[in-house]
């Protein structure tokens, strides 16, 4: 089993070995291959950022030749489709994407500085939750999950959403992550009723409940929530077993209504960092090319077919890592 310390940066020689011996054009997902001539490609040759941009490939053969010759530090392609990708001109549409980076997720139980098995698995759990909402609530079907090397990209191809502008995408992000505390007062015929989010098993309140549950079940004593003191964090941890059984009423009683409200606000604010929203609203973003090498951690950026059972340390490690001497 590969361990995190084994995942040191790939040397120039290892990159060469990867692209010339292991990389296969077959590993580029079809959703990219079939639109290759409409996308902009970008490359980072020296580990200083993708500054070789505006590249275009008429078909996979040209891309193959380029990768094998240049063996780049990192390879990217646009989420956007253009009439003239060489000039990023004539924007046609963009995939709807969500970027979950394990090192940036707001509540991590590991406390590591970069990424490790634990936070990568937590990123995977978050992705599973987002997928449920994308499919169940938003009715999206053509979704591809890509392991990026340090987290996951969700890439939605449904025609309905690829033309959406940044403002709508930002609303989708907020819905998906549970960025606002849902209203809890509903009126009917002049009477107001109080319905807590956890008593509503559908729609946005349910999404929010799921995200709150995830956050509370992953809190550690060192976790930080806006306007929530250490004592309250401690109490949340102490009583969270109620949430494992979905006993929300009991949990709220133990915490107290005012403190509970504070917790909801704190988690809602934190939820905005579950995904990198900048990526989702950017219609011209370039994302790491699935099949390429993430040279900083020596892992393969790879399409994930079965997210429930995906293990990056089994499924995304290039051969050269196993052959390293030290």
């Amino acid at each position: 089993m590969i361990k995190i310390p084994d995942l040191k940066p790939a040397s120039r020689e290892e990159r060469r070995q990867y692209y010339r011996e292991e990389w296969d054009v077959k590993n580029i997902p079809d959703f990219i291959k079939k639109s290759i001539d409409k996308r902009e490609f970008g490359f980072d040759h020296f580990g200083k950022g993708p500054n070789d941009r505006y590249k275009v490939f008429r078909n996979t053969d040209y891309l193959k030749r380029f990768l094998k010759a240049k063996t780049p530090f990192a390879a990217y392609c646009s989420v956007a489709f253009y009439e003239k990708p060489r000039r990023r001109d004539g924007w046609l549409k963009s995939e709807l994407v969500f970027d979950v980076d394990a090192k940036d997720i707001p509540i991590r139980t590991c406390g590591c500085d970069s990424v490790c098995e634990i936070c990568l698995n937590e990123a995977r759990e978050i992705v599973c939750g987002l997928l449920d909402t994308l499919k169940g609530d938003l009715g999206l079907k053509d979704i591809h999950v890509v392991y990026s090397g340090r987290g996951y990209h969700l890439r939605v191809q449904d025609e309905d959403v690829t033309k959406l502008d940044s403002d709508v995408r930002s609303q989708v992000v907020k819905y998906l992550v549970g960025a606002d505390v849902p209203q809890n007062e509903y009126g009917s015929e002049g009477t107001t009723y109080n319905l807590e989010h956890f008593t509503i098993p559908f729609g946005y309140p349910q999404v929010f409940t799921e995200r709150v549950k995830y956050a509370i079940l992953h809190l550690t004593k060192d976790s930080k929530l806006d306007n929530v003191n250490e004592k309250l964090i401690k109490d949340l941890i102490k009583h969270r077993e109620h949430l494992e059984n979905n006993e929300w009423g009991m949990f709220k009683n133990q915490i107290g209504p005012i403190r509970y409200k504070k917790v909801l606000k704190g988690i809602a604010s934190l939820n905005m960092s579950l995904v990198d929203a900048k990526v989702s609203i950017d219609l011209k973003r370039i994302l790491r090319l699935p099949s390429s090498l993430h040279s900083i951690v020596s892992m393969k950026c790879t399409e994930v077919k079965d997210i429930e059972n995906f293990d990056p340390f089994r499924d995304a490690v290039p051969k050269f890592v196993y052959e390293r001497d030290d």
Partner: protein
Amino acid sequence: MIMVSVAFINPLSDDGKQIVREMGSLEGVSDINEELIDAVIQTKSQEISDDDVVPQTYFDFALRRIEWYIKKKNDKKFNYKKYTFLLNDNILKFDVIAFYLLCQAIAIKFGPNSRESRVMVESQGELIENRLGELSKADRKDLVTLMLNSLISYSSIKWTFFEDLLSSRKLNLQDLILDNGEIILDKEEFVERFSDRIEHRDPGKMFDLMIGDRIKELILIRMIMQNTENYMQTVHEKSGREIEPNPVLLELADKVSDVLSASAQSYGYGGSFASDTKASPLNPKAFPPCVKKVLEGMKSGGRNDAIILFLTPFISYARLYPSVFSENISKRVSDVDPNLAALQNEILPMIFGAADRCNPPLFEDQPQEKVNINAKMGFGMHETLELKDEGETIWYTPMSCEKVKIHLPSLCKPDADCKKIGNPLTYYNRKKRMVKKEESQNESPNES
């Protein structure tokens, strides 16, 4: 049989267009109209204390529409009885004509992205809501259903259908009940889809509470608002191709603008008092929490965006052009700071200070970012700030709270004053006024 005409709710409907066609031309829109005066006077519960209250012409009527909205929104002593006629469907013809006059006048003179357009669209939404509120429950339900049916195909609406409303934030995705991509509006559909998930509650009652007629009305109102906005956009585009706009419409547009300016003086419409949003030295006590946080220096991610995209536009506009959003006129820095003295001596030191307090200091490892600061203030990609380069790039306006949440989520730690504002600059203008008031109150005992 519903008693109210569809055009009274939606002037853009076929019925509404028919009324405009019958009117024919703009002739006589500023003449005294006895029929209108009668309709207003005969409105039940209408309070007529003086003649000024009664609109005498189509013009007057149009302005009353705007005035009603502004006063209702801002005036704590608003007397709604002076405007009861706006809810009386006997004024239908005048209302529809006034609606078109306003849309055209505002679109031609100010364009679709102006403050005047925003007020027009908002006032239409508010009027619809109030007019629906006057109907019996059954009539209201029937009318809403009838109108929605004419606007959308009713069975199974996908959320993406409302792309425009979501984009302009007239509709919030979180307010809709979604299942498998569809918006649930029908009770039977709701019960069928969700009853097995709902425990200890009657699914029918749950529907009435969560969806009922509320969401349908919300969608209807927001669609009409969006269509009003789209109509103004079309008029604006067409007017650009025409030779001379009708002077009658330009006159009305000016009067609408006067109503808004007067309200800005009285109520600070748009969240800022015109008199207090003049360029003046910065008052850091009035900065919102997000700005204070960046000024302390960013200790973790988002350092570049925080200093360049967020702080630079905020500080420069707060110091030089704090009324940018209410005036809605594009300016260059030199329009308000001709020799760039405030820019060099007040604005840049504050931005550079914040950059130095970052960890690591921003310019230590990325000195090229200084150029980006100049670019965001309109001076192109140059290392020095020179008037000759001004205009090569645009002077970025401050990010809205919404954008801050997306780009720099860690910055948004709202305090109580953040609740009613949508932009950190608006917060600053309001708070500056409050701080000034507090300070003058503290000083007054010494003065007396």
